[in-house]
């Protein structure tokens, strides 16, 4: 009797199992996505680079995260508040486990702080404001900053937390040690707390993610596996999307957008990126390095800078070169950056006649010659933009000798300020305007101050405001000071902002995915029909 019942149970269980398995198989959804490059590592502290942080952001989590609308959301911290001007209390999420099974505690946060701050780390910028982290108990910490720091919750959102135990066990205490010449265990393996686990990784070939069934949150995706492949060649990447081998590719070259739009199975998703593309001019040297004007520097005269500004037809760049999808910019940061000043985001009008007049007034009635440096493999259509700028300036009498070159040759020149006139782009790594003020618009000084200010624009008022913004604890006052600094820089025409380039994804129509301004590709919001 008992045996019969148990057998019947067993049969029912087997059938249930089979049905469950069949249902599971029917729902097996693989999401295949491609980017033009691979992450150089999966160690989240090794490079401060978008693809790496975006990919590892599926496996690792930070104290705070970003929501679908780019808002700050709780992640490994459930809540936080400022308990003193330089102290923030973060309450940590309980009952969270890393993928290797070790529990997540305050010790892991402190360990990750030391690791991110230490040698070989490239994400120091995210923890630079932190002086120390004090453990309150296993699930609470106090973060002490060197100065009052109101934007701490934003800045820590890209600083991922690693397991102390896992790193110790596998000898991955440091992101890398170039002198020892040894490989770091965590550069091809990962154990985070995130919604996806790293199933396998062949660098440069294939990276496979599977959902983490023990994730603390509620899954908003419906995929059972995600495969990431880098495809460097634009034509091949687009072909892989059209042929159905890919569900999502990033980026789609602007000239291929109409072709993808015309395909009934495909869609294009575009939005402005956080990066602002701008022109810089040497305003420090008494004589430009690359110009036929000897004995003086024309860019020291604001009228010349304004003439260059107004000679540029930004609409022509937007419609012809950027195929109508760039967002012209009036200030040096994008609308998605914390501290953006909407009322200043207006450009001086395009006015070639006025530009010629300004040049005459400045003493260059027949213009002058200047050398321009430009990367040709860094930003969307960067080389073409520079060619267009050169031809627009030629119309007002400024002859531009353009040097368009690979980024590995271009950036050292900007950093050493051996340029007269150049095009570059900037995304504030902290997603906050202060970073742009500090790195791009401050007088080059100690440490990283003004180091990407390739033309050495300098205004003591901007420097002073930047210093004070860094230590201001009152959000309203801070916003006002940021606006003031941007207004001064705009009046000075310290740089010439051009536009925000678009993020351009190609997707199957059956795929839904959230696009946020830093172009992170979160699997947690992917649904495949």
């Amino acid at each position, binding site marked *: 009797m008992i045996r019969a019942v148990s057998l019947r149970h067993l049969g029912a269980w087997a059938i249930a199992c089979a049905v469950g398995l069949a249902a599971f198989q029917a729902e097996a959804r693989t999401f295949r996505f491609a980017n033009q*490059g691979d992450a150089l590592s999966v160690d989240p502290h090794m490079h401060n680079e978008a693809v790496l942080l975006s990919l590892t952001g599926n496996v690792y989590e930070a104290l705070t995260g970003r929501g679908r609308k780019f808002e700050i959301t709780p992640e490994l911290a459930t809540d936080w508040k400022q308990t003193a001007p330089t102290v923030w209390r973060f309450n940590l999420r309980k009952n969270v486990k890393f993928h290797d099974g070790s529990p997540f505690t305050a010790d892991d946060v402190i360990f990750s702080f030391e690791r991110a701050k230490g040698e070989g780390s490239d994400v120091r910028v995210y923890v630079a404001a932190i002086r120390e982290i004090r453990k309150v108990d296993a699930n609470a910490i106090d973060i002490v900053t060197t100065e009052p720091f109101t934007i701490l919750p934003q800045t820590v959102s890209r600083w991922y937390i690693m397991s102390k135990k896992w790193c110790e066990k596998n000898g991955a205490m440091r992101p*890398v040690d*170039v002198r020892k010449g040894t490989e770091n265990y965590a550069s091809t393996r990962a154990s985070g707390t995130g919604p996806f686990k790293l199933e396998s990784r062949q660098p440069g070939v294939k990276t496979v993610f599977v959902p983490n069934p023990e994730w603390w949150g509620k899954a908003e995706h419906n995929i059972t596996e995600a495969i990431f492949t880098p495809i460097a*060649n634009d034509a*091949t990447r687009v072909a892989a999307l059209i*042929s159905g*081998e890919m569900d999502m590719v990033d980026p789609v070259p602007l000239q291929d957008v109409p072709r993808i739009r015309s395909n009934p199975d495909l869609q294009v998703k575009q939005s402005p990126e956080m990066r602002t593309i701008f022109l810089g001019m040497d305003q420090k040297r008494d004589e430009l390095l690359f110009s036929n004007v000897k004995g003086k520097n024309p860019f020291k005269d604001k009228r010349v800078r304004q003439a260059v500004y107004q000679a540029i037809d930004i609409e022509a760049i937007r419609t012809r070169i950027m195929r109508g999808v760039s967002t012209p910019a009036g200030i040096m940061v994008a609308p998605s950056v914390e501290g953006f000043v909407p009322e200043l985001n207006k450009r001086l009008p395009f006015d070639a006649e006025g530009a010629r007049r300004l040049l005459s007034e400045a003493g260059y009635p027949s213009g002058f010659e200047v050398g321009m440096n430009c990367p040709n493999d860094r930003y969307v259509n960067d080389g073409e933009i520079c060619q267009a700028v050169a031809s627009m300036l030629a119309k007002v009498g400024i002859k531009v000798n353009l040097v368009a070159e690979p980024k590995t040759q271009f950036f050292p020149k900007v950093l050493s300020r051996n340029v007269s006139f150049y095009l570059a782009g*900037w995304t504030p790594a902290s997603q906050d305007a202060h*970073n742009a003020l500090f790195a791009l618009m401050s007088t080059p000084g100690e440490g*990283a101050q003004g180091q990407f200010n390739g033309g050495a624009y300098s205004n003591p008022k901007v420097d002073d405001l930047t210093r004070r913004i860094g230590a201001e604890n009152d959000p309203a006052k801070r916003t006002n000071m940021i606006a003031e600094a941007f207004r001064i820089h705009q009046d000075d025409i310290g740089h010439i902002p051009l536009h925000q380039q678009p993020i351009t994804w190609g997707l199957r129509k059956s795929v839904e995915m959230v696009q946020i301004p830093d172009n992170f590709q979160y699997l947690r919001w992917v649904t495949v029909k």
Partner: protein
Amino acid sequence: MAAFVLRRLVQAALVMAAVGLIAFALFRFVGDPVVFMLGQDATPAERAAMSAQLGLDQPFHVQYGRFVARAVQGDFGLSLRQLRPVSTLFAERLPATLELSLAAALFAVAVGIPMGVYTALKPRSWLSQAFLVVSLIGVSLPTFLIGILLILVFAVQLGWLPSFGRGDVVMLGGWSTGLLTVSGLKALILPSITLGLFQMTLIMRLTRSEMLEVLRADHIRFARARGLPDRLVHFRHALRNTLVPVITVAGLQLGSIVAFAIITETVFQWPGMGLLFIQSVMFADVPVMGAYLCLIALLFVIINLVVDLLYYAVDPRLRLDGAAAH
């Protein structure tokens, strides 16, 4: 014989040293990797420190000397881009490139020789004319365009073959092979045609002209006069004599197939050495570039050495020269 080989080996070492020296002299112009290694918020002092640590601030002959000193011990250093040992990266990538190159060479020989023979035997048939036109296309179209056209037709329009990658691979010890899976074999087709097309046309044209030459030779005429059937004359007497130079050229071309795989690998995202090299150039990853160029030089040197040794075995005059010198 031993003296000959020794002399050749010394020459080979000199060639590789020269390639390395020229490469390092050129690396000064590829830019500075430190900016990308450290990210945009590093300070100038941190960059300078990293540059000094890596020895990138040294003049090129010092960098080159250090590279050689370590390379002779089998240590190629750490890739600046991936921060993983160069030897590991090469071990991961080499199987892909070798499989692709061999498949391309096989395709070039297996298709090129029969086509050459056919065009020589039936010069007036329309098929011969068609082959010659195809070979003209193969010679004149750049590799990347052929690759993209093949992707367009066979991956996008027809959907028969994958447009990128290597498919599924199986690990045999440390060797990853795509030859044992269906998807791996399918993925091999388009890249090997792309890579082998130029060599195929070369081999076809060479076979054709050699064959035409041989068919006019006396021994063929005598063979015909003896009343041997055409099949025997063509394939036993003519083709055999044709193949000697063809095989020499095909062997020498193997080196350039491996070297030219760079473009094919970029188009098809084939995870081989060429793709690694291109990515390294874009990052100014000096250790990888140096090691790659030396490896390719080594390959050419070995192939030439083998060919020289074969000549030595075949051609008695070389041996006589050696004897006369003693």
